[in-house]
């Protein structure tokens, strides 16, 4: 599963932060997943549980969602990406590389593919709690 690679990136990044802050046991990792990439929290949580070890062995993972906000650079229209209205193959392509949204999604007002992904793109490490 593709989420495994993202989970590994999250733990690698979290470990770097923990080491920098002299945290010996990470108790909680907060992750924010963007609506555009459609990463399923249960799948990501499963991947994290499979690869966690060492300082993460007792970690809990909070996975929060971020709504997608797209803003047209041509007419300034702001809208939310609706996964239910998108073909499954397209949805999967955006899941792997969210930027290909520019190939498939157009501004609902003017039809331009030139929009900014303001929020809800992909996976972010939001917070880390632990014991020093």
């Amino acid at each position, binding site marked *: *599963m*593709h989420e*495994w*690679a*993202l989970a*590994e*990136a*999250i733990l*690698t*990044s*979290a470990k*770097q*932060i923990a080491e920098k802050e002299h945290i010996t046991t990470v108790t909680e990792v907060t992750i*924010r997943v963007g609506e555009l990439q459609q990463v399923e929290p249960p799948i990501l949580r499963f991947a994290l549980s499979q690869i966690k070890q060492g300082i993460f062995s007792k970690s809990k993972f909070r996975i929060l969602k971020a709504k997608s906000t797209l803003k047209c650079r041509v007419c300034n229209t702001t809208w939310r990406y609706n996964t239910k209205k998108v073909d499954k193959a397209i949805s999967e*392509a*955006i899941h*792997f*590389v*969210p*930027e*290909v949204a*520019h*190939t*498939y999604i157009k501004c609902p007002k003017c039809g331009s*593919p*030139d929009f900014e*992904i303001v929020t809800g*793109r*992909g*996976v*972010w*490490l*939001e917070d880390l709690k632990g014991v020093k």
Partner: protein
Amino acid sequence: MIDPRTSVIGERLSKISRIIAVSSGKGGVGKSIIATTLALSLAKYGCKVGLFDLDFTSPSTHVILGAQNLQPTEEKGLIPPTIHGLEYMSLIYFVGDNPAPLRGADISNALIELLAVTQWGALDFLVIDMPPGIGDAILDLVRLIGRIEFLIVTTPSLLAFETVKKQVALLYDQKMHIIGVVENMKQDRKQGVESETGNLGLKFLGEIPFDSHIETAIGNTSQLLETEVGKKIIQIVKANILSEKKKA
């Protein structure tokens, strides 16, 4: 909030001995054909090779390879499919024949995403077909993959070489290793960039005569290696790239 993806890129590339970016100052100098031919030539010598088309907005290596109906396998990330002995990654798996109108920040994000999730095997070489110029892609690669090497393609045109000078200045400034310069589409033996290349302190890898039949080899990799481009790249691989293999 922290983007975790960049932290894992080094690990993803850790089983690759050498990473060669084929770049140019201008478009239309034959960079994609040379990048593809370079990858195929290295594979011909028994090396394990990957080819990554980083020209996201104008990808063409899939056409040169004659790649059709390929998709990566989802297994702890994305495993590139193999075609003509090359592990091959391209944005075309996700956009098909449709345009990908990406701005700079989008190019960076797509590049980071693919570097973070692509599970390359153990490779002797990863060849990257770069977009022309000194924009986001080259800056990101320099930032994210410090050990990348550059092979620069130009034509005899002073206009093309003028842009090469800027690219070389940037790469020197960033302390990047430049393997050398290939002069493609040579028509007039009196006009060329060999001496200018030397003036830049760079190795002139060779000149490739203009080959009016190259178009007929597009999509046929065996034929491609028999063209003037193919023959010359094989020579360059033997004389300049394989000989450096153990230095990496």
